[in-house]
């Protein structure tokens, strides 16, 4: 079997809220698969269903060939989860003790548990604070501990729900490197990663699903996603403050637009995707007619951010 995860018309409602609607994805073994979308788009809900913590309202989902509804006990041995916003563990216990405790949920005997924990502590260079209580370590150390906790059962599918949320640049990079190394060690492994950091998705993921308001907009490699805008151009224009966004959108050839207003400096930064370079002159004459002063204009490299803007109609 090639796929580690398959969903078929998977939907989850909470009352009137359609958290997920007809999700169809296939994730291959050996892949780092990204779920990219703004807050509230359903990423965590999808992960909860795949980790057997939540039932779907409709549709099906299979992890390693097992049905999340019926065979959840079989799935649980082979998965683990690390969430960036969680404080899992017991504050009065040390890093080492907490890890050992969590190892015991997976059926290792006591000494096996200690051995695995000690190995991981060494491998991830955590000796220095391994015997400190987890309520006495920094956020970065905690997230590293949490990441290692997710590896205790040597999972085949590792779910990472915003694993670098709120972390500083160095620790984020360290954790991203661990993820890359971990997946390379064994081609049977899979990582499902949610994030709302574009660079993280771009750096790590073999394929990315763009998810918005409970729906998958598209799934593809970073390369192919960028290719969506291969014919279009992206410009960045600085002007004095504007409020004509809707009017600009209706200009022929304007494919997507995002405006950041800096009220204190009275400046608007417009990022715009246009079908061809000539559209920019239409845009400039529109601005002129509206009496808006252009401060600067530059042609930009297409980024994943622009693709997202183009597909979803808003910034991530």
């Amino acid at each position, binding site marked *: 079997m090639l796929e580690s995860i398959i969903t078929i018309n998977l939907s989850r409602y909470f009352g009137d809220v359609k958290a997920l609607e007809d999700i169809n994805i296939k994730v291959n073994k050996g892949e780092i698969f990204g779920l990219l979308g703004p807050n509230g788009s359903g990423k965590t809900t999808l992960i909860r269903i795949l980790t*057997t*913590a939540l039932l779907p309202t409709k549709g099906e989902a299979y992890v390693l060939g097992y049905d999340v509804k019926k065979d959840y006990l079989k799935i*649980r041995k082979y998965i683990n989860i690390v969430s960036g916003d969680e404080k899992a563990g017991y504050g009065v216990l040390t890093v080492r003790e907490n890890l050992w405790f969590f190892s015991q949920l997976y059926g290792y005997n006591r000494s096996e548990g200690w051995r695995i924990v000690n190995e991981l502590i060494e491998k991830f260079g955590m000796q220095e604070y391994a015997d400190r209580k987890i309520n006495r370590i920094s956020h970065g150390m905690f997230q590293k501990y949490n990441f290692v906790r997710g590896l205790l059962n040597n999972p085949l599918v590792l779910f990472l729900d915003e694993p670098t949320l709120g972390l500083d640049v160095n620790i984020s990079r360290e954790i991203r490197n661990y993820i890359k190394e971990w997946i390379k060690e064994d081609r049977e492994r899979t990582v499902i990663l949610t994030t709302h950091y574009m660079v993280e998705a771009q750096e790590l993921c073999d394929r990315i699903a763009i998810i918005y308001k409970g729906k998958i907009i598209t799934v593809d490699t970073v390369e192919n996603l960028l290719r969506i805008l291969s014919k279009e151009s992206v410009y960045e224009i600085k002007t004095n403050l504007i409020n004509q966004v809707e009017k600009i959108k209706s200009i022929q050839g304007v494919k997507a637009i995002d405006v950041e207003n800096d009220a204190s400096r009275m400046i608007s930064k417009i990022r715009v995707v246009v079908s061809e370079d000539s559209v920019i002159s239409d845009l400039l004459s529109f601005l002129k007619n509206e009496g808006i002063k252009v401060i600067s204009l530059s042609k930009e490299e297409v980024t994943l951010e622009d693709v997202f803007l183009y597909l979803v109609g808003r910034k991530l």
Partner: protein
Amino acid sequence: MSKINELILVLRVAYARAYVRIKGVNRDLTHFFIDVFLPLLGISAIILAYKSMGAPENLLGFAAIGGAMIAFWYNVLWSMGSQLYWDKEQGNLQLYIISPAPLIGILLGMAIGGAFNMSLRAITILIATSLLFNIKFNLNAILPAFLIFILTLFALYSLGMIFASTFLRFGRSISKINELLGEPILFFSGVYFPLKLFPIVIQIVVSIIPLALGIEGMREILILNKTLFEIIWILILLIALGIIFFVIAVKMLEYLEKLGKNQGTLTLKWD
């Protein structure tokens, strides 16, 4: 997973949960002294009052046993009761649920760890009162008394598991009910006086309180020199209550896990 493997996993998880609980709680020994010293003050006050009135010698021992058992009730009501709820808020519950470990193992471990910690305290309190006030216990009957003690803890902590599930279901609002249960149960368990003082109807009703039964049983044995055989009804009731409460706790937990998976409440931090 076969039944036997599942059982082994439950026991492993229970051991691990108890181990970390015992280790965590006893890391700071000042807690231990506070936990022993404060009840000791309360018990001493009662015993001194009894003494000044020239009350029968037996009553002193009664108060010592009852007083030493108070902490178990609070431990069950508050610590056991709120543990799973707290685990949910912390994000631990989600990790328990997505692991192969059955939740009952966690609950069992919490109970064993809590009971062990409290027992260390209760026994220290009992020895201290005995030395301070020269109270004589029938030490030949230590084994039957211990049996009653263990059965009491079994029933009491099974009740605690029910509290834990209830707390998990209803959240913080349930703490009002806990406040309501606190003192009255202690009163009706007769921690400082013999149950026989109650009218017979009340005596029958309170016999579903494991704490009341346990205290009564230990007094009969340790102070009134009764044999286990003479108080066999207490033994049977405690076993029955323990099993009933335990089964209810297991069923509630299974139900809650299902409900949570359906409604998404187990992973939601809702109040």
